[in-house]
């Protein structure tokens, strides 16, 4: 697969604060790439460098094969940025906002482009109202619609769902997925692990100025200990009988209230094996719950490991 973005040893210092201390990352063409990091980790700085808003102190960044520092004008023709706060013109209507960008991008028929996007983003009814009357979700949709004009092959979304209500957030996810399905490369930043999990083909965690880890959501989840299964029993007798059987194969912890915690993988086969063992011993648990490792576990593990290193 071709690469859309290649970042090598990118460094940036603001006054005395080293924001980026040598960032390396690769984004494949057509994928959704999520840059995950806590507030102030430097996600926006990376976006600013890749979108020509600022320059790095050292290192290189290639977007569509072009060096952002050497030919910024060429980069600008092939990207678009949707910043952290919806950068729409409040005074203009939704339609006028779209036509403004369409005119500046020199598309052939800006009125028609605007109409199509209004329809696609479900803004037709509000098309001729000033953007300041829009809800947060509508502003975000307008913002993204403006970014799509001229069909740039790479789109940067800086925290696209920050501040949105749950429904608007889900809608935004649908929009982003649809964009990626259309072949656009999407580079997004987020503080939300579930968002990265839901959307991204590749996730990179930015922590203390470098990419601590990157891979698919599945790959990252493998880095934390297996999941847990918790079984509840009707009696002490059953509880201890189960514990005796299961501790031969698993790490078992007796919890309060007739509960047994078992460390076990998340695969179906492993779970089935556990229940077969219980059934063979004629033990029937009264309750069952499973805790699957999440990206949160990965994230917190990375952050905690780094702290221990210091």
């Amino acid at each position, binding site marked *: 697969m071709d690469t859309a973005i290649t970042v090598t040893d990118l460094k940036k210092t603001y006054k005395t604060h080293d924001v980026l201390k040598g960032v390396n990352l690769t984004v494949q063409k057509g994928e959704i790439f999520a840059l995950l990091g806590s507030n102030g980790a430097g996600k926006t700085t990376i976006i600013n460098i890749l979108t020509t*808003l600022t320059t790095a102190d050292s290192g290189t960044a290639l977007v569509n094969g072009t060096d952002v520092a050497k030919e910024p004008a060429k980069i600008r023709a092939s990207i678009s*940025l949707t*910043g*952290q*706060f919806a*950068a729409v013109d409040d*005074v*203009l209507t939704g339609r006028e906002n779209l036509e403004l960008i369409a*005119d500046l991008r020199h598309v052939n028929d800006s009125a028609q482009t605007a109409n199509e996007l209004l329809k696609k983003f479900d803004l037709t009814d509000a098309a001729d109202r000033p953007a300041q009357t829009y809800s947060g979700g509508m502003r975000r949709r307008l913002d993204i619609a*403006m970014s799509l004009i001229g069909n740039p092959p790479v789109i940067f979304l800086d925290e696209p769902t920050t501040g949105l209500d749950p429904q608007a957030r889900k809608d935004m996810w649908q929009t982003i997925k649809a964009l990626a399905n259309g072949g656009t490369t999407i580079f997004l930043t987020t503080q939300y692990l579930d968002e990265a999990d839901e959307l991204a083909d590749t996730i990179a965690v930015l922590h203390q100025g470098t990419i601590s880890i990157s891979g698919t959501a599945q790959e990252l989840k493998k880095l934390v200990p297996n999941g847990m299964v918790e079984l509840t029993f009707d009696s002490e007798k059953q509880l201890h009988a189960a514990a005796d059987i299961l501790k031969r194969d698993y790490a078992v912890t007796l919890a309060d209230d007739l509960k047994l915690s078992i460390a076990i993988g998340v695969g179906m086969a492993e779970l089935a094996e556990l229940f077969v063992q219980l059934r063979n011993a004629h033990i029937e648990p009264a309750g069952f719950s499973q805790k699957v490792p999440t990206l949160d576990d990965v994230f917190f593990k990375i952050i905690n490991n780094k702290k221990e290193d210091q």
Partner: protein
Amino acid sequence: MNLIKDTWTMAKRSLRHIMRSPDTIITVVISPIAILLLFVYVLGGALQQQTGGVKYIDFITPGIIIFTIVSGVAYTAFRLSSDVQKGIINRFRTMPVAPSSILGGQALSSALSNLFSCLLVLAAAFGMGFRANAGLVEWIVFAALVALFTLALTWMAIFFGLLAKSAEGAASFSYILMILIFISPSFVPTESMTSVLRTFAQNQPLTPIIETMRSLLTNGVVGDKAWIAVAWCVGILVVFYLASLRIYRTKTISA
């Protein structure tokens, strides 16, 4: 060609802003008109002794035009700074559009709206008895000088609009210009000032501009300060135009 087209696209955008908040034009013209009323009807009788036989309304009108332009460009800086704060400028900065078009559009619309404000204030002055002793040629030269001065101050406003950390702070450079107007021959002849102030007032950049405007309208001649006036305007224009383009490209604007 794209340069002109894009500049016009941007100018249309900010003209829409101006048209949709006509209160900004009212705010811009109301203080010069209030000062005009105050100086002409309250202080004018006393100040009339100082103007060497010129009717006070005729004496003050050119300075009031300058005042109108200063109060107008304060809004230019305010509007541009709000665009910066809202991230709209960052959006434009990541698009393949020349900075001179993005900022030039603002400059064009600002100059047009400020000239319109000047017309309103001039009409008010006429209503209060202002009469010019100028032919068509002098009026055209006067208009050209007003346009050049407006453009120069507009680029100054664009520079401060890009530089300021808040929209409210962006307009503060205009206070300094306001003070310069008061310490100039705009409202009273410099002869009546104390010697230190007089030296300053006679040599500061606004003075030749005001004197040339007054000379054109009251005497019907260009006067001997015209080239100095034009030189100041062009100097301000070039310096702030280049500085604005530079800051547009290099400044890290954190929205």
